[in-house]
C-alpha cells in the first residue's frame, strides 16, 4: 500500500486551491450553465404541488409549440415562497417568470422595482379576452401599468367534504340510498352524532388538521359566512367597515357549537396536532366523516384512488346561505421579473399560461375554476365531485373593493395583531381562553385599533384615505356588488 506524503505547505496549498475552485464554481450563474447551446431557457417559479400535473403538461405543450424555448420549472415550498422570492430578487437571481406571492401586496413588489410592466404585450385587445373589470388600478395595475392578470374565476374557497362510506355506515342516507347531505348546522350535528355513536366511538363525526393553525379558521370561515357574516375571517364587514368578531354573534355561536361537538366526542381527538395533509389522509381512510377544505383536496384524493366523497358549501343555521364568498373583479397570479433576460419569450409563456385553452384544461383537470366563464361548464367535467364544485360557482360573488373606489387605500399598511384569529380560535378550542365572547371582542378591538392606526398614519403621510373608504353601506351581501370608481 503506497501513501502519498504531502508537506504542510503542499497540503495547505491544495486545500486553498480546492476551496477557491469550489467558491468560484458556487459564484457562477447556474442558469447559464443549464442553458442549452441554442435556444432560450426560461426560469419559472411556482408553489403548485397538487396542480403540478397541469403545469407540467402546459410546459410540455408550450415547448412543443415554441421549439427553441425551454422552461426550467422550480416548485418552491409554499410557506417559504415569499422569503425565497424576496431573497432571489435581492440577490439578482430571480426567475424570469413567477407566480406572485400573495403577501405582501403586489404594490410592494412593484414599488421595489422587481416586476416588469406588461403593457408592451398586454394590449387592450389582449385584455379584452378577460371578463369586464379584470384589470383594476390598485389591484393588478399600478401607476397605469399592468403587472399581472387574473387567472381563476370566482369560486367558493372552502367546502365541507363528506365521506360517503362513513355516512352510509352511519345510516345517513336518503330513501334512494344516496348520501344524505347535511345543509344546516343542526344537520351536521346530527350527522356527527350518528357517525360517532354508531361506530362505538371508533369513527368520528368531524376532523381537521390544525398543526399549521389554518384549519380552525377555515371552519369558522365556512360556517360563519353561511350564517351571514360577510367578512368571514378574511376582511372587515364592508357594510360597516369594521371587524365584527365580537359584535356579530355568529362567531360566538359557531365556536359554542364547535366546543359542544368536542365535548360530546364528535371531533377526531388529534385534530389540533395533526397537519391538514394528515387530516385529509385520515378522512380518506374513513377515520372521520366530514372535513373542511378547498378544491385542492380533490386532485390528490383522486390520484390516490379515493373518490367516494361528496361536498357542499356554506352550511347555515337555516339551510339557506345568508352570506357568500366574495372576490374582487381583478386579481393577479403570474408576473415577469423586471430583469427577465428574454422578455418576449417570458411573455410568451405568461400568455400561454393565461390562454383560454390552458384555462379549459385547468377546469377539466379538476384544479379550479377559470377566469373565462365559458370554461366553467360542468358538462365538460368528467369527475363527478369536481362537477359538484363547478356547480357551486354561484356561491361566490363580486364584493366591494375599496381600492377601486380609492386607489390610495392600497397603500395603507395595517400592522399585524397578536394574538390573531388562528391563535384565539386555538385558545378557545383547547380551553385556554375560557370566555369566548370576551376573547372575540378583544380580538375585534385589536384589529379595529390596528386598522384605525394604519389609516391615521397614512393620512399623516399625506394619503387621502379615511375609515369611510372601507364602508359600503349600500351593499346587499346576497347580490354581486359593483364598486363605483372614486
Amino acid at each position, binding site marked *: 500500500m503506497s501513501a502519498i506524503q504531502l508537506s504542510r505547505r503542499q497540503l495547505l496549498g491544495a486545500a486553498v486551491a480546492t476551496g477557491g475552485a469550489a467558491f468560484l464554481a458556487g459564484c457562477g450563474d447556474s442558469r447559464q450553465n443549464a442553458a442549452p447551446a441554442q435556444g432560450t431557457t426560461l426560469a419559472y417559479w411556482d408553489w403548485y404541488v397538487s396542480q403540478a400535473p397541469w403545469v407540467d403538461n402546459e410546459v410540455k405543450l408550450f415547448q412543443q409549440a415554441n421549439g427553441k424555448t425551454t422552461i426550467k420549472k422550480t416548485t418552491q415550498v409554499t410557506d417559504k415562497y*415569499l422569503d425565497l422570492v424576496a431573497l432571489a430578487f435581492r440577490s439578482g437571481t430571480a426567475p424570469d417568470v413567477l407566480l406572485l406571492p400573495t403577501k405582501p401586496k403586489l404594490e410592494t413588489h412593484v414599488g421595489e422595482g422587481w416586476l416588469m410592466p406588461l403593457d408592451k404585450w398586454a394590449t387592450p385587445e389582449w385584455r379584452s379576452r378577460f371578463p369586464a373589470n379584470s384589470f383594476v388600478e390598485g389591484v393588478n395595475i399600478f401607476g397605469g401599468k399592468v403587472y399581472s392578470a387574473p387567472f381563476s374565476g370566482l369560486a367558493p374557497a372552502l367546502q365541507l367534504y363528506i365521506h360517503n362510506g362513513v355516512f352510509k355506515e352511519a345510516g345517513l342516507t336518503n330513501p334512494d340510498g344516496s348520501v344524505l347531505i347535511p345543509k344546516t348546522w343542526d344537520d351536521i350535528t346530527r350527522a356527527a352524532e350518528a357517525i360517532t355513536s354508531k361506530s362505538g366511538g371508533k369513527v368520528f363525526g368531524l376532523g381537521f388538521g390544525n398543526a399549521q393553525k389554518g384549519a380552525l379558521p377555515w371552519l369558522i370561515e365556512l360556517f360563519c359566512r353561511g350564517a351571514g357574516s360577510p367578512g368571514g375571517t378574511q376582511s372587515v364587514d364592508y357594510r360597516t367597515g369594521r371587524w365584527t368578531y365580537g359584535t356579530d354573534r355568529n362567531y360566538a355561536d359557531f365556536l359554542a357549537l364547535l366546543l359542544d361537538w368536542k365535548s360530546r366526542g364528535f371531533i377526531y381527538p388529534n385534530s389540533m396536532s395533526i397537519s391538514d395533509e394528515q387530516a385529509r389522509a385520515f378522512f380518506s381512510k374513513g377515520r372521520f366523516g366530514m372535513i373542511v377544505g378547498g378544491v385542492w383536496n380533490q386532485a390528490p384524493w383522486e390520484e390516490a384512488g379515493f373518490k367516494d366523497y361528496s361536498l357542499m358549501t356554506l352550511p347555515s343555521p337555516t339551510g339557506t346561505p345568508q352570506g357568500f364568498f366574495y372576490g374582487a373583479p381583478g386579481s393577479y397570479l403570474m408576473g415577469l421579473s423586471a430583469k427577465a433576460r428574454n422578455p418576449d419569450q417570458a411573455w410568451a409563456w405568461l400568455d400561454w399560461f393565461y390562454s383560454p385553452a390552458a384555462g379549459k384544461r385547468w377546469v377539466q383537470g379538476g384544479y379550479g375554476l377559470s377566469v373565462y366563464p365559458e370554461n366553467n361548464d360542468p358538462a365538460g367535467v368528467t369527475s363527478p365531485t369536481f362537477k359538484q364544485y363547478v356547480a357551486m360557482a354561484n356561491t361566490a360573488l363580486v364584493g366591494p373593493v375599496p381600492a377601486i373606489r380609492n386607489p390610495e387605500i392600497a397603500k395603507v399598511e395595517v400592522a399585524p395583531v397578536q394574538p390573531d384569529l388562528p391563535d384565539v380560535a386555538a385558545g378557545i378550542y383547547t380551553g385556554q381562553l375560557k370566555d369566548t365572547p370576551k376573547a372575540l371582542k378583544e380580538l375585534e378591538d385589536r384589529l379595529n385599533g390596528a386598522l384605525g392606526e394604519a389609516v391615521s398614519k397614512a393620512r399623516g403621510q399625506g394619503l387621502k384615505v379615511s375609515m369611510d373608504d372601507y364602508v359600503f353601506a349600500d351593499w346587499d351581501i346576497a347580490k354581486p356588488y359593483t364598486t363605483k370608481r372614486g
Partner: protein
Amino acid sequence: MTDIQLVGRPRALIAGRASRLRRRIAAARWSYLYVLPMLVLLLAFVIYPIIASLGYTFYRWDGIGEPGDFVGLANFARVMTDSIFWGALRNTFFYVLLVVPVQLVLALALALVLNNRRLRGRTLYRTLFFLPVVTSAAVVGVVVQLLFSNFGDVVNDVLMSIGLTDEYVDWLGDPSFAMIIIIGVGIWHTLGYNLVYFLAGLQTIPDELYEAARLDGAGALASFRYITVPMLRSVGVVIVLLSVIGSFQVFDLVQVLTNGGPYFATEVVNTYVYHLAFGGFGGTGVERDVGLASAASFFYGMLLIVFAVAQALFLRVLVRRRGGRA
C-alpha cells in the same frame, strides 16, 4: 530632560511590547492560520448578522426591500410589554429548569454505570445512548410528531383500556401535555452529549484514589461523595454551562412538534422570534415583522447575558466555597 524621560520611557516600553507581540504571533503563525477559517465564519455568520440586525430593531419592516419605517425604540417597548414574549420566556425557563437537572442526573448515573469496566458491551451501550445526538432535532421532531399523530389514538386506546384515562388525549395539541412531551424528547435527544462529557471526566479520576478509599473502608456511596463528586466538579461546571446554553437555544423541536401551540402553550423565545420574523404558515398566524423580531432577539440576548454572568459568578463562588471546605 525630565520631559524627554517621561515620554521616552513609555514609547520604548510600547515598542518593546509590540516587538514581543510580533514575535509571539510569528512563532504561533500556524496556530493563527488554523484558527482563521473559524474566525472568518464566526465574523460572517454570527458577528456580522448581530451587528446588521441591530439596525433593523429601529424599523418596522416586513423583510421585503429596504427598511424605511423608522420607529425608534418602539419595537423594544412593544417586546417588553408583550405578554406573549414573557409567556415564551417563562416557557423557555421552564424547559431549561426541567431539562438541565433531569438530564444531568440521568447522564451522570448512566456514565457511572457505563464507566464500570466489568460491564459487558459498554461500548455498544455508549453508542446507543449517543445515537440520538447525531440525529437532527428536526428529524426527531418529525418522527415523534408522526408517532403521536398516527398512533396517538392507539396509545389512547391502551390507556383507556387499562383505566388510566377515560377520554382521548391529543398529546401534542393539549396544553397540559405538549410541553412535557417536548421536554421529554429534549432530554432524550441530547442526553448523549452530557453522558460522554461525564464519561470523559470520570476517566480522568485515577483508580488509585478509589483503591485507597477502599483500603480505608469506604463504601461505594462514600467513594462517590468524597472522590467522584469533588473530582468531577470542574468538568461538571462546564457541563452545566453547556447544558444551560444548549437548552436556552431550544427551537427546532418546538417548531416541528407543536409550532409553539396550542395558543402559545409551548412557545419559547426562539420560536417567538422566528414567528415574528417569518410569519405564520401559509398566511396564517402572526404576520412578519423583522424589526420587531430583531428587537425581541436583542432583548432576549441581553437577558441571557445577565443570566449567564449571574450564573458564572454563582458557580465561581460555589466552587471556591466547596474548594475551601475540601
